């Protein structure tokens, strides 16, 4: 035993020294960037920037390929990268920003751009965008514009909402496919014909059990792919144009909620409790358990992988003919604390991404997002990138009535609070009036806490 413990102790000491030795001698990616930067200072023309992005499975390889090509085209710029799975990337980013260690340029989820912008973590890109980009050539530039007209990011790829429908379910029920003229009431009427309980009964049949549904008419969850489009097309919403005042407690929102709660109560639309019985809330439509869904563009990936026979169309109109499609413009942003040289090099990367047709085409071929450049988005490369959905034009037409998710510095906080009250209303644990009143009060408190302190 004595001998064993001595060996153990010696092993620890040796390993500690070994690893510590390795650590000091092998510079890290971030260290190497700073070391190389020192070198670059002496060479003047060389600059190294660190680029951060959230890794996306198969898309990582393409990202690295595009970075390599950029470096070939820009021999004076070297890019070091850092990536992490989506959730971990943003968790780490907050820590890095606090320690002034964030990448020089990073890919931000569209809903988080304003969080960084309003906290001074990213650079105002207005002058560079005005100077170098033809705004008319791009989708989504304005989705990163604040109330003062300043631009904080350049979209890398766009997610925009549309109505997905399972053609097989429609054919089987003898219901006509959704038309672009549908209102939300038309959708509900069709959804009722497509809903089936465990014993294959429809809502109009006697003995229909709304508590045990095998096929929902519409699946629906959370903000982007749920309540936001309905509220907006009913003329309601969450925040006013200043993005720091709640407008939750309105008659329009009440009407929209009545539409949603009635649909959930009658078993036509998935409620938050129904979603828990699936692998994930996103899996309902790909699993064939719903005839329709509100979905952003990226949902084609799962639907195609599941081999569904489906298509997409425009989201329905509200009672007054108003329509709304939610947009998330995932964007490149530049670190505000990057020095001038690095910031300019980072801008070269952003320009390369936005302006180079080849980059846009190759990224579009992955099928993860609507291309930012209109010429590429309207070309065969995007429109025929996969057999399904056939009507990809619906995503592009939706830009005519698209808007952000009222993103501001405290978006994550107010969405969580609103969801809390919305879910209570959906599950009928509280009345719609109470839910809206409480949500209005508590969302406003979150807004005041941030904006009144500023």
């Amino acid at each position, binding site marked *: *035993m*004595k001998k064993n*413990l001595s060996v*153990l*102790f010696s*092993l*620890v000491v040796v*390993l*500690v020294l070994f*690893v*510590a030795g*390795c*650590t*000091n001698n*092998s510079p*890290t*990616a*971030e*260290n190497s960037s700073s070391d190389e930067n020192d070198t670059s200072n002496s060479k003047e023309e060389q600059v190294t920037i660190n680029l951060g992005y*959230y*890794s*996306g*499975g*198969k*898309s*990582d390889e393409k990202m690295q390929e595009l970075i390599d090509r950029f470096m070939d085209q820009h021999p004076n710029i070297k890019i070091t990268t*850092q*990536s*992490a*799975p*989506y*959730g*971990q990337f943003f*968790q*780490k980013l907050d*820590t*890095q920003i*606090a*320690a002034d*260690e964030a990448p020089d340029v990073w890919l931000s*989820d569209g809903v988080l751009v304003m969080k960084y912008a309003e906290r001074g973590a990213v650079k105002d890109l207005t002058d560079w965008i005005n100077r170098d980009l033809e705004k008319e050539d791009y989708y989504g530039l304005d989705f990163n514009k604040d109330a003062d007209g300043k631009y904080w990011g350049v979209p890398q790829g766009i997610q925009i909402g549309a109505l997905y429908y399972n053609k097989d379910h429609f054919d089987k029920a003898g219901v006509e496919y959704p038309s672009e003229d549908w209102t939300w009431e038309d959708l509900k009427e069709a959804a009722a014909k497509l809903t089936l309980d465990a014993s294959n009964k429809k809502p109009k049949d006697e003995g229909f059990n709304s508590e045990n549904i*095998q096929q929902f008419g519409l699946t629906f969850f959370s903000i982007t792919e749920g309540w936001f489009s309905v509220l907006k097309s009913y003329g309601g919403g969450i925040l006013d144009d200043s993005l720091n005042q709640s407008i939750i407690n309105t008659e329009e929102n009440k009407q929209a909620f009545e539409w949603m709660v009635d649909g959930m109560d009658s078993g036509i639309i998935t409620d938050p409790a129904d979603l828990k*019985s*699936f*692998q*994930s809330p996103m*899996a*309902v439509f*790909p*699993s*064939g*358990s719903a005839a329709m869904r509100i979905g952003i563009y*990226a*949902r084609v*990936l*799962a639907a195609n*992988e*599941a*081999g569904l026979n489906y298509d997409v169309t425009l989201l329905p109109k509200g009672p007054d003919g108003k329509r709304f499609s939610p947009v998330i413009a995932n964007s490149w942003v530049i670190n505000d604390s990057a020095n001038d040289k690095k910031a300019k090099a980072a801008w070269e990367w952003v320009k390369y991404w936005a302006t180079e047709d080849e980059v846009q085409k190759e990224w579009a071929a992955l099928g*993860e997002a609507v291309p930012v450049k209109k010429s590429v988005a309207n070309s065969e490369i995007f429109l025929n990138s996969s057999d399904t959905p056939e009507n990809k034009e619906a995503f592009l037409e939706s830009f005519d009535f698209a808007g952000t998710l009222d993103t501001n510095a405290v978006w994550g906080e107010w969405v969580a609070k609103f969801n809390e009250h919305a879910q209570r209303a959906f599950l009928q644990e509280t009345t719609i009036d109470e839910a809206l009143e409480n949500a209005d009060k508590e969302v406003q408190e979150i807004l005041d806490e941030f904006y009144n302190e500023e």
Partner: protein
Amino acid sequence: MKKKRKFFTAKTIGYIIITISALIMVMPFITALFNSLKTYAEFTAVPPKWIPSVFQWSNYPEVFKLGNFIDYTINSFIVTILSVLGAVISCSMVGYAFARLTFPFKNMLFVMVLGTMMIPPIVVIIPHFMIFQQMNLLDTLTPLWLLECLAQPFGIFLMRQTFLSIPKDYEESSKLDGCNPFQTYWRIFMPMVKPSLATVAIFTFMTKWNEILAPSIYLTSNEKFTLPIGILSLGGQWFGNEQYMVAAALLSLIPILIVFMFAERYFVSNFTNSGIK
């Protein structure tokens, strides 16, 4: 005869209960195994299809194609082994000091150590990040195991309690034999607290093997990722690749199962202070 039948019945009921309990414990693993062998369509199917129509064995090689799983596994081993060694040595030393040595403010310091158990790791992550940044240790594996070598409160508490339960006679005997305090700790006490050392080692192993927060904060380069981060990176923002993630998670369980098989007897056994006459 009647007695025998009664015994048989009781035994049978016992076996049935044990079998049902075992099935309840094993079912999630069997489900995960089947899920890892499904296509995406079967994975999301409702009602769930328990057994895949065709076993997709190719999901396993695909996992290795999608990520540097060999690297992730080696990294996880480096971090875990160094953490276990660090935790066992440091916790036993500190625990011994709190239990057996006399020094000023001993009790106050011990309360402070216990107090740190109440602090959630997320709260100290930014200060730790800044310290490791100053030490030029970001994007290395060092921050992941170094903290374990600086003693962990739970391990200290456990070791202190264990050392306290050893009779003073040992200490006195070793003193008579000419041992200094370190020799007493190392030669006399350490061999007697093996089960507690094993407990610290197993808890540290499991914690570090499954750790997500610290690696995701400190590591930047893909080739330095540990297994949990590697598994998560198989999924994209939009499309989960869930069947591959399950396959990778099952693969990552193999080392921990092997360790548990070898260490199980230490884990469940109790320390008995035999040897005193």
